[in-house]
């Protein structure tokens, strides 16, 4: 803690933005931390069994992932107060009995978790 205070005082006195952001000459800029972890699980509302292969996408952008064999998914999305997620059945054979669903998540931390149950047609 004391180190950081001292750094900031000296850096501030020399009016340098190098205190806050720097990059190696052959490296990248620094990650500014503008994302959050979205995780969850998708199950059948009838059987309560996990659903694999459901497409989970962020409605505001092109991001998507698919649920794994345990119905789980996880990805990093842009920081926001809320996230609109779509749960789509894209497999015409395995999950054809289920209805797609959209949901809005309120974001209050740097990670959110959601359990979703898809209804049968």
């Amino acid at each position: 803690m004391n180190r950081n205070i001292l750094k900031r005082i000296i850096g501030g006195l020399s009016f340098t933005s190098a205190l806050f952001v720097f990059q190696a000459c052959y490296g990248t800029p620094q990650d500014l931390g503008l994302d959050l972890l979205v995780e969850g699980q998708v199950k059948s509302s009838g059987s309560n069994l996990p659903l694999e292969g459901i497409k989970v996408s962020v409605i505001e952008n092109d991001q998507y992932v698919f649920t794994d064999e345990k119905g789980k998914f996880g990805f990093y999305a842009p920081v926001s107060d809320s996230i609109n997620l779509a749960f789509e059945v894209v497999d015409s054979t395995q999950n054809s009995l289920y209805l797609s669903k959209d949901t809005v998540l309120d974001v209050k931390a740097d990670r959110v978790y959601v359990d979703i149950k898809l209804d049968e047609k």
Partner: protein
Amino acid sequence: MFSLKKSLFRIFKETETNFHELNYLFWECTTRCNMNCLHCGSDCSKESSHPDMPLNDFLSALDTIKDPPSDFTVVLTGGEPLLRNDIETCGLEIRKRKMRWSMVTNGYLYDNEKHISLLNAGMGALTISLDGLEDTHNWLRNSDKSFARVDQAILLAANTARLNFDVVTCVNQRNINQLPSISDYLIRKGVKAWRLFTIIPIGRAKDNPELNLTDQQFKQLMDFISKTRKTKTIDVKFSCEGYVGTYETKVRDSYFFCRAGINIGSVLIDGSISACPNIDRSFSQGNIYNDNLFDVWKTKFEPFRNRKWTKIGQCANCSDYNDCQGNGFHNWHGDKQNVLVCHNQKIKNTEQFESKKQ
């Protein structure tokens, strides 16, 4: 002339050096590359003599770092990192450790699908190399498809607000007069940040005179950056590769500070522990297969943190030494008896030449 600002910055550098907090770690995760660039400092090739480093080997080293700072970033570099088929897994494992990650790429394999999967895996910063307009980029990259591919990659990255993204350009004799046009191109693509380098005469670059700028051309580069920064149309800057005397703060946001071994470390392809990957490999401070990475960081790196040994050759009697301290660390290769490139001298030579002409 005495400058309070400069004096305070020297104290700041000294303080940073004494603290030497590791918050930027390169991982040379592969030395395979899908390009055959004329300027490659690594002499990378499609068939590298080193196998890619297994992820678990790197993670074991990463796990030695206790209480990393909140901005701790692992920078995946190569070779071409996108040749690894587990790059997303690498990123997710880094994020699980409350660390961040970013990547340097040539953009050739960076399509929409890859863009999404990398964002899903928590990539937060990205640098793409663009070395000119179509003709000069493809020439340097030694590939007639390279520009079309990188153009697509730049468009994807530039339109993703959460990515801290920049483009880097290696300036050489063929593209120096294209810089205004490259600037216009980047602005049209929505790029906000652009970093310019010169090419260090190492690796393949040392045998190709077209890659190295003359002293006059180097000053032309400084003038271009300085002038373009004033327009505020794009955040263009000179990289931290070297001290540039009278152009300091005109071409960058702050004074020159080479943080290699002070805040910047690396794990190289063979497990060597060093600072930036383009630094002479004889400066390696240990190896993750034999040593604890964090112990090495805390207790070694003496040549990086005390650079008095660079007061040799043309640096021995230089009046700018206190601000420059031997230039960028990667400028010390071979027998290390003299600095490889003195950017400040290039500027001084040109200024003398111009004043004689008048």
